[in-house]
């Protein structure tokens, strides 16, 4: 019953409809896997939040015309890290030009968003985007075992 760091790579994959009522399911799953493979509660909850943010973006932005498309959450764990890829086949975006305004600026501008990508980058050790609109848009996030 004690968790051990995995010796070889383990893969977990979860695909489900891009609807906000599935966020709780995804978080639950991700935090349990993170804990099971050896992260403490604090690290697990960071991973959980980063994945929630990436999936919330898929639900809100990837398929603006049609909810209920696929969110694909892929988790790979090896001896020194956990890697999560959140993918959609939606409209995509340019991560380099997305405006990452600071809080005061957002509030003045009456924008209530713009915080998700900032959180993801702060919470995870490495973040990487691969965008092919309509085909495959991926946010890859890595957390190392400390």
């Amino acid at each position, binding site marked *: 019953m004690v968790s051990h760091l995995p010796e070889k790579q383990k893969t977990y994959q979860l695909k489900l409809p891009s609807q*906000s*009522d599935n*966020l*709780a*399911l995804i*978080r*639950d799953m991700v935090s349990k896997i993170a804990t099971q493979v050896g992260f403490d509660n604090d690290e697990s*909850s960071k991973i959980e*939040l980063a994945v*929630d*943010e990436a999936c*919330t973006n898929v*639900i*809100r932005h990837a398929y603006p015309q049609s909810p209920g498309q696929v969110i694909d959450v892929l988790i790979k764990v090896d001896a020194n890290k956990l890697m999560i890829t959140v993918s959609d086949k939606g409209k995509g975006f340019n991560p380099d030009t997305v405006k990452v305004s*600071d*809080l*005061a600026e*957002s*509030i*003045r501008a*009456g*924008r*209530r*968003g713009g*915080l*998700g990508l*900032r*959180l993801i980058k*702060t*919470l995870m050790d490495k973040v990487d985007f691969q965008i092919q609109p309509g085909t495959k848009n991926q946010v890859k996030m890595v957390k190392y075992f400390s």
Partner: protein
Amino acid sequence: MEGFEVNKRDNDNVAILNLKGYLDAHTAPDLESAFQQLIDTKSYNIVVNFADLSYISSAGLGVFMGFIEDIRKNGGDIKLSSMKPKIYRVFDLLGFPTLYDILDEEEKAVAKFKDAGEQS
């Protein structure tokens, strides 16, 4: 599965919202309605008590960003209290403590409105 609840109480001229459960993109609209109702009834002195909130994502934080300007323009404020460390961390990471009053106890948050009232 655990859900989300927002309950309103009054302490003199301060409205207190108790949050419970998880606040994410799915449940944020419930909190938005609660704020909208306060604004509709011109209740601008608001304390949000987070004691029973176990999870928040940026979709939840967005609600506080969306209403704060309007409420402050009307002489009120949204003060936040009683966050678990895990919840406070999210607000902190995004820089909220410089723009919002975040208190460790609800009474202190309420007192801030009353002190301000006495001074004016």
